[in-house]
């Protein structure tokens, strides 16, 4: 796979310079422009995606309202350095739209999900098998305007795995119930001896109907559901949803809330990285690092509990601000925590760096090539270990990170070792960010009567339909959340796109040619979310 970043034709204006030619700009969409196009415009978009590798597809979802069905594609300009973002929307009056899968393989699973949930047909979809729908819901197309009921007691249809033929090949089916304390999913390995020839993932086992549950709910209720989309990213998903709602309503939240959100987000990043670095080493049978890093994770969670009243900080970020202010003793407790972690983390990194028997397992294992990472617009440590420097905190950037100093580590090797080192560097950056935030966070504002208002605003009633979008960096990578609010302020449609959508397919590529025994290492180093992806 070659690097396609620089293949844009110099003679034609790039898509982002002529978005207006695709169709008129929708007025009620914030903060990025949304252009309403027609079939010809959508085909132009496909043509541009084919020619311009710097045009990243960062989201693809459908919507249904009284006006019928639509598909929305979110794009980012990665070649020009501006990182401009835009959404292109296509109405589908006849229930069909031309597939993007031939030009962006990252669209395949998103379109399969759209077919399952809305009943729209992606014309020319390179893999038309169902994805989230395993034939067990008693319902087809649950998000369409007219879902159809099916016989829920009938045995589910069989799911054909992709054929893989050759001499000496055998299959190893794994899951959905896995051997560890892990989320469920099915992996079908085809191996020749110890070497994996092909891995095929089948996900959707933890599909909970999140998008349907949120529909028609007040924003406060929808926020509780979003906070449980993926437990390890509860803060980041809550921030993304809150920012999308606030963008739609044009609401500016109290500065202190902005800083407290970032504080929680960095604690979440820290806890996940500390736990995962240890778990990756443990998957290489080096349990020492897990034994020493998991207490560090525990220290972060206890500090979070002491500061915000919940170890994972679930429901602490809500649209309008944050639910509890940090405990009075919180800032000092977190400074003590970062000082303690700095002292204890560095020697453990030295252990990882010194153990050649451990590096033997992680170096050159599970390589994800840069070209492939680019085609999937992979973010987070998966993208950054394969040469992609994207980080939503920097581009498009949001407060308070625009005022903070931090680096986005990037490596090019793309192997398990590179992903471990990105996480190590991000731990160091998050420690610094937490210290900066505590030192610079606006103080508690006090009214003249001495009463401290919580950093939380009531959502205004705007009396018209609005749409908003947010790009927020979770520990795993960039979350895209799109929300359409009804005139009465309830959620008409919310689509949270977890970074895992663009990372799971890369795991299939990473394991190819590696031995079966290295799969846990590859899997843990990528660490896709099942629940966040299955919705």
């Amino acid at each position: 796979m070659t690097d396609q970043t620089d293949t844009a034709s110099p003679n034609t204006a790039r898509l982002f310079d002529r978005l207006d030619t695709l169709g008129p700009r929708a007025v009620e969409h914030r903060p990025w422009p949304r252009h309403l196009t027609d079939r010809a415009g959508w085909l132009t978009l496909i043509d541009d995606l084919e020619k311009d590798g710097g045009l990243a597809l960062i989201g693809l979802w459908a919507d249904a309202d009284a006006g019928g069905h639509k598909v929305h594609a979110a794009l980012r300009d990665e070649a020009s350095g501006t990182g401009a973002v835009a959404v292109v929307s296509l109405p589908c009056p006849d229930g069909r739209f031309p597939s993007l899968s031939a030009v962006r393989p990252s669209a395949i699973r998103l379109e399969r999900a759209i077919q399952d949930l809305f009943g729209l047909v992606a014309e020319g979809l390179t893999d038309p098998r169902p994805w989230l729908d395993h034939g067990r819901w008693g319902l087809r197309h649950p998000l369409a305007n007219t879902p159809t009921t099916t016989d829920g007691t009938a045995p589910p249809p069989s799911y054909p795995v992709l054929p893989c033929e050759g001499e000496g090949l055998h299959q190893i089916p794994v899951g959905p119930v896995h051997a560890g304390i892990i989320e469920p999913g099915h992996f079908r390995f085809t191996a020749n001896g110890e070497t994996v020839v092909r891995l095929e993932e089948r996900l959707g086992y933890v599909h909970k109907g999140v998008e349907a549950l949120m529909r028609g709910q007040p924003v406060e209720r929808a926020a509780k559901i979003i906070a449980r989309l993926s437990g390890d990213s509860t803060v980041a998903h809550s921030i993304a949803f809150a920012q999308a709602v606030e963008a739609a309503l044009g609401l500016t939240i109290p500065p202190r809330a902005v800083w407290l959100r970032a504080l929680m987000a960095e604690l979440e990043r820290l806890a996940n990285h500390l736990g995962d670095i240890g778990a990756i080493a443990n998957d290489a049978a080096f349990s020492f690092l897990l034994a020493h890093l998991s207490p560090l994770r525990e220290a972060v969670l206890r500090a979070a509990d002491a500061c915000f009243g919940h170890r994972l900080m679930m429901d602490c970020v809500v649209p309008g601000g944050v639910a509890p202010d940090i405990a009075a003793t919180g800032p000092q407790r977190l400074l003590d925590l970062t000082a303690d972690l700095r002292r204890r983390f560095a020697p453990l990194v030295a252990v990882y760096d010194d153990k050649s028997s451990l590096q033997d397992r992680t170096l050159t294992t599970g390589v994800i090539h840069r070209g492939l990472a680019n085609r999937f617009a992979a973010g987070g440590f998966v993208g950054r270990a394969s040469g992609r420097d994207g980080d939503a905190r920097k581009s498009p950037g949001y407060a308070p990170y625009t005022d903070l100093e931090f680096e986005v580590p990037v490596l090019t090797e793309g192997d398990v070792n590179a992903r471990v080192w990105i996480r190590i560097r991000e731990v160091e950056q998050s420690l610094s960010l937490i210290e900066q935030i505590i030192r610079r966070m606006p103080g508690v504002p006090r009214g003249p009567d001495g009463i401290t208002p919580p950093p939380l605003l009531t959502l205004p009633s705007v009396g018209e339909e609005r749409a908003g979008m947010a790009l927020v960096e979770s520990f795993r990578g960039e979350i895209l959340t799109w929300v359409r609010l009804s005139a009465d302020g309830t959620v008409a449609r919310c689509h949270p796109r977890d970074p895992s959508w663009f990372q799971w397919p890369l795991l299939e590529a990473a394991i190819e040619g590696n031995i079966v025994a290295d799969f846990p290492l590859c899997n843990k180093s990528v660490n896709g979310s099942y629940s966040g992806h299955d919705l």
Partner: protein
Amino acid sequence: MFNHILRALTKGPVTEPAPSPSADGLAELAGRIEAASRARLGRSLSIRAVDAGSCNGCELELHALNNPIYDVERFGLRFVASPRHADVLLVTGPVTKNMAEALRRTWDATPDPKWVVACGACAIDGGVFAGSYACVGPVETVIPVDLRIPGCPPRPAELLAGLLSLLEHSASRG
């Protein structure tokens, strides 16, 4: 690395004392466990965790039980890789329709005597996902439940207290 090991040897373990077994859990278990099975189990339980649609929050806290701070194995509680080796199925999540059959099959594969723990708000009543077209609902609608550990997610200390009450009960010889 050797400094770490030396420090661990001289300073002693970081493991914290156990919480007292949850009174609610003990009450719920009263009368559910046959004397014969108590004798067979002694003071150890092998647990097979099954995620039946959880958001992964419960799993994160179950992982914490295995860290040196909580060190669940000192009580004879052990997470095992196969239902064939398990005494207890610990189920999380609102049981998605896509996972219901896998959960039932896991239960069928677990030898008797066996107990089922519904862990977390979703496993107990569906949590925020109750009523979804894609969820069956509480674990007890699919397999019989012996113990419920509430929380979203339960803290490790609460998990430990619940599991200890199961252990106490299975060990008390009436």
